[in-house]
């Protein structure tokens, strides 16, 4: 669900005009505004989940929005660990969300292994 943009602000005025930028996020075509961050484009398109925690698979989104927490990391054009809140959208960018990673060396108690004990 998108909450939309703040088109008219009582003090800041009208949303400044900016050209549309087309990007792809996890295979989906989206439009953002030139000058805004990847996080802003995604939120404006109703996307809050930027990745999952690599181990637990829990959903994660932005937290600080100014580059300090690293919660918003996504892959951009093949480079991983890019902060969505600090990176402006560029025409044709391919963005993908972080996924759960395999845990080959993790000890799992027999009772929790798939297929049962």
């Amino acid at each position, binding site marked *: 669900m998108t909450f939309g943009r*703040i088109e008219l*602000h009582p003090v*800041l005025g009208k949303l400044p005009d900016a050209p549309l930028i087309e990007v792809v996020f996890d295979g989906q075509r989206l439009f953002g505004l030139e000058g805004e961050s990847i996080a802003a484009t995604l*939120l404006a398109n109703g996307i809050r989940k930027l990745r999952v*925690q690599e181990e637990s698979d829990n959903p994660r*989104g932005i937290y*600080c*929005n100014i580059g*300090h927490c690293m919660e918003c990391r996504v892959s951009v054009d093949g480079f991983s660990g890019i902060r969505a809140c*600090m990176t402006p959208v560029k025409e044709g960018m391919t963005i993908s969300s972080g996924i759960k990673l395999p845990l080959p060396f993790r000890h799992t108690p027999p009772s929790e292994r798939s297929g049962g004990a």
Partner: protein
Amino acid sequence: MRDALIVGAGPAGLSAAIAAAGSGNGMRITVLDEYPRAGGRLLGQLHQEPDGSWWNGIKEASQLMERALRDGVDIRTGVSVTGLERNGDEGWTVWTNEGLFQAKRLLLATGAAESAIPVPGWTLPGVMSIGAAQVMTNVQRVKVGNRGVVIGMNVLAMAIVSELRLAGIELAAIVLPPKNALSGHASDPNRVFNSLLRFAHMAPNPMFRWGASLIRPSWLQRLVVAGYPGSGLRIWDTPLQLRRSALEIVGTDSVEGVRVAKITPDGRVVAGSERFVEADFVCIAGGLYPLAELAAVAGCPFRYAPQLGGHIPLHAESMRTPLSRLYVAGNITGVESAKVAIAQGAVAGTAMALDDSGGASIALSAELERAISRVKQVRREAVIQFHPDIERFREQMYLEQGTILRYRIN
């Protein structure tokens, strides 16, 4: 090689660049900032001054930036500084994602960061720091949600609550964080109430302002907290619930609401008082601390200053550090408002110019003294005071250091 490198294009860094570039020494200055736009945390700020005019951070930032560019300052955004090293007594080398930068003098103006208060469920999408909501609302102009809950009460939270309301975003409640090892005084109603009184002058409601001016004695404060209405007092049309605390943020893929409970005046949960508040976003307001890692990497000594938000690099009133050719300015030296950061930047820029002249310029020495007294004046007149004791604390700190650091040509 540059004459000066400034890390951080916030109000402190930009104003330092303007002061140094305009000093008449012809200094070549580069400002680096990792955000795509110059202005730092000033960009998100929007509040009304006592005279009724608006402090519009975006406008203030672009004015500073234009002045700096006009004076020939080289401003580079999207550049993250990750490390630094001293080149003997010659200056500093700085590591960035865009390669190495070298300069004779280095100013760290990296600002502040927000403390987080972990609350069960705080990793859900839709939970963010209050500053994140400020930037999304005022800078990016995208709505963070329709109806939120704010967890934590401090001066920054109150300023941003008013900004969210201004943008037409509804807030269901402002509640305290749950009592745990990390929340400290932030979950104690008596302590929080006492601090709320300090920024009651910002409240839009004259009754609120007038009431607050009467509630100075501490016995009266305790009485007010004890009798504080459960539903909260309204501020910017939002219930400020001093006697409710968040227990857990609930949701599957994103925020659906917050479980809250009544608390006693000393912060303990009242059994059976739990209730669910529907919300589609949550802001956690844990306060600010100076972002000073780079000063630590440089090897600068630190001092613990709770009044200023935490650990700060040791520095003199002239913004010189004990390390040769290293300076600091703005919130890295303690959390204060943007106007103070601008004034401190002017001090640092002037000190760099004076040191660049070998300390010989009488005009710059005089200008440095003027800039230092301007900081004090701006601090006294600040609308947003993050701590009541900042002025006294700084006076004492600078006094304790003696005059060596202040007057030493760096």
